[in-house]
């Protein structure tokens, strides 16, 4: 066990800004990517379902 207390843990031997700055930005990037993917999926399915309900009026093109 490296840390005497939680405050020592968050203090990171004086390097808190660098260590937690690295971990926080990484977390933001990963969570951000997951949220973007979820949002893209929701909007895409909404659009596709609308198109489908409208009976695909733009016709069945050959798949590209």
């Amino acid at each position, binding site marked *: 066990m490296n840390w005497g207390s939680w405050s020592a843990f968050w203090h990171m031997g004086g390097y808190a800004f660098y*260590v937690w700055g690295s971990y926080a930005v990484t977390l933001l*990037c990963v969570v951000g990517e997951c949220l973007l993917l979820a949002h893209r999926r929701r909007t895409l399915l909404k659009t596709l379902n609308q198109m489908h309900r409208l009976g695909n009026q733009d016709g069945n093109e050959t798949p590209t």
Partner: protein
Amino acid sequence: MMGINWFKYSSPATFYPLAGKLIPLFYTLAALFCVAGLYVSFFVAPTDATQGEAYRIIFIHVPAAWMSMFIYLVMAFWAGIGLAFNTRLSSMMAQALAPTGAMLTFVALWTGALWGKPTWGTWWVWDARLTSELILLFLYIGYLSLTAAIDDPRRADKAGAILALVGVVNVPIIYFSVQWWNTLHQGASVSLTRAPSMAMTMLLGMLLMALAAWMYSIAAALSRVRLIILEREKHTTWVQEMLERKP
């Protein structure tokens, strides 16, 4: 091959549900490796003798840097297969990998800067390792911009593949830069030819976090490739039938 018909899975219609089944598995594996990796990184691995606690950035920095190069190679591989054999799914896979690769490249650069400041006294130097990793980020962004700028998906695939393949030369430059040039950046953390120079627990934390990053990348790329498949195949019968079944 063990009775599995691989050609069957190279069709988007068959791959779509298969990917859907695999995604939760890879997200779960990523979470498990991440929890184990963070525990080892912060509560098992000792304080570094020379760098104190600042070295704990390694548990993000090295896995992100490894994956940034590895994803590029996989992306270029699938893009090249798509270019050579005109297989649609491989080109879609390449496009699905690029954003995750770009994100991890940014993470590698960011954590590197935050590690460089306390250890070297500077956020950034134009040395070979840092510059070639920055070029990797530009290659990802270039690939994403180029494929997004071309309307016809098949032409976008071809143009993107050529860019991706030309950029492959940069990956060995990143990897060997610390040996070829006199850089400020330290040498390889892990080598197959030398005994590990760091404590086993430090190495274990790094490997667990690398596995977490790998599993996460697979999950994110599979999620994205399903969206690309839907976008490109929206007029096909199988997508219409699927919307019929579960709107």
